[in-house]
C-alpha cells in the first residue's frame, strides 16, 4: 500500500514536470506523460501489467518492468553521455580561444601579430 502510494506520487511528479517543461521534441513530452500515466494505472492494476506482459510474450508483469527499466536506463545514460560530450566541446572551444587571446611571449619578443 505504502509502496503503491509512493510510486503513484513519483509518477504524478513526473507527469507534472513533463506537463510544464519544454521538450526538444513534442513527441518526447507526450511519451513521458503517457508513460507516467500508464505507470499510475498499472501500480493500481498489477494484473493488467501481467496481461500486457503476456501480450508481448514476456512471462510476468514484473519481468516486463525490469526489461523496460533497463532499456530506459540505457537510453538515459546514452543521452547523458552525449550531452556531457557536447558541453565538453563547448568548453574546449572557449578554453582554446582564451588561451590564444592571452598567450604569453618570452622575454624580448613582445606580442607580435
Amino acid at each position, binding site marked *: 500500500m505504502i509502496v503503491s502510494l509512493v510510486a503513484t506520487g513519483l509518477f504524478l511528479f513526473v507527469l507534472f514536470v513533463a506537463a510544464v517543461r519544454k521538450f526538444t521534441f513534442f513527441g518526447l513530452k507526450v511519451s513521458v506523460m503517457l508513460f507516467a500515466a500508464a505507470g499510475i494505472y498499472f501500480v493500481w492494476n498489477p494484473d493488467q501489467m501481467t496481461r500486457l506482459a503476456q501480450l508481448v510474450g514476456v512471462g510476468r508483469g514484473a519481468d516486463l518492468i525490469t526489461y523496460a527499466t533497463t532499456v530506459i536506463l540505457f537510453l538515459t545514460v546514452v543521452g547523458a*553521455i*552525449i550531452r556531457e*560530450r*557536447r558541453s*565538453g*566541446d563547448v*568548453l*574546449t572551444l572557449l*578554453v*582554446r580561444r*582564451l*588561451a*590564444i587571446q*592571452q*598567450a*604569453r*611571449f*618570452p*622575454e624580448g*619578443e613582445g606580442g*607580435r*601579430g
Partner: protein
Amino acid sequence: MSRDNTLWFVIAAFNEGPMISEVVRGVAPHAQVVVVDDGSADDTGDQALAGGACVATHLVNRGQGAALQTGIDFALAQGAGHVVTFDADGQHDVAEALEMVARCRAEGLDAVLGSRFLGATVNMPFSRRLVIKAAVVFTRLTTGLNLTDAHNGLRVLSREAARKIRIRQDRMAHASEILSQIARLRLNWREHPVTITYSEYSLAKGQKISNSVRILEDMLFGARS
C-alpha cells in the same frame, strides 16, 4: 646556426614542469616554439616561458588533441610556414625533427610522420609495442594508409596541411583522427625514421594501456562536427 622563424614547434604539455624548459631550450635555437600548457597543476607554463617558448594556457585540462589544435592555430596566426608537433617529455629528438622538416620542404610534401619502427626505440616496453602495433593494424584497416607506426607524436605539417587538418578529438584519439584526415584530404605524406626514447621520466608519465580503451571509446562516440 640561426633560428628559422617560419618554423614552429607545437608542444602540448600537461604537468611537464620538471622537463619542459629543457625540451624548449633544445628547440629554441632552431625554431619558434609554442607550448600549450593544458591546465597543468605545476609550473609547466612558467618553465616553458623561461625556456624561451610562447605559452598559451588552457585554464582547464582539455587533452592533448585540444592542446595541439590550440598550438597549431597560434602558430598559423604567427605566420608559420611549417608546423612540427613535438612531445613535451623529452622522448623526441630535435635533430631528427629538423631532418623531417628539411625533407618536407625538399620533397614538397604536405606531411612527414615520424616512425619509431622505421627508426629506433630505446627501452621500449613490450606491452607498449604491442598496443602500438595493434593501433597500426587498426589504422591501416580504417584509413587505408600504409603506415608502420601510429600514435607517434612527432609530425611535420606544411602550412596548408596544418590549415586543413582540424583536430576535433580532444584527447588521445586525435592521433588516429589526424591520420584519417590525412587520408581523406589525400595529403602527400611520407614516414621518416625517428628515435623514441623511453626514459624513466617519460614512462612514469606516459600513456597507460588502460587508456587505449578510452581512445577506442572516443573514436566510437565520435567528435563534434
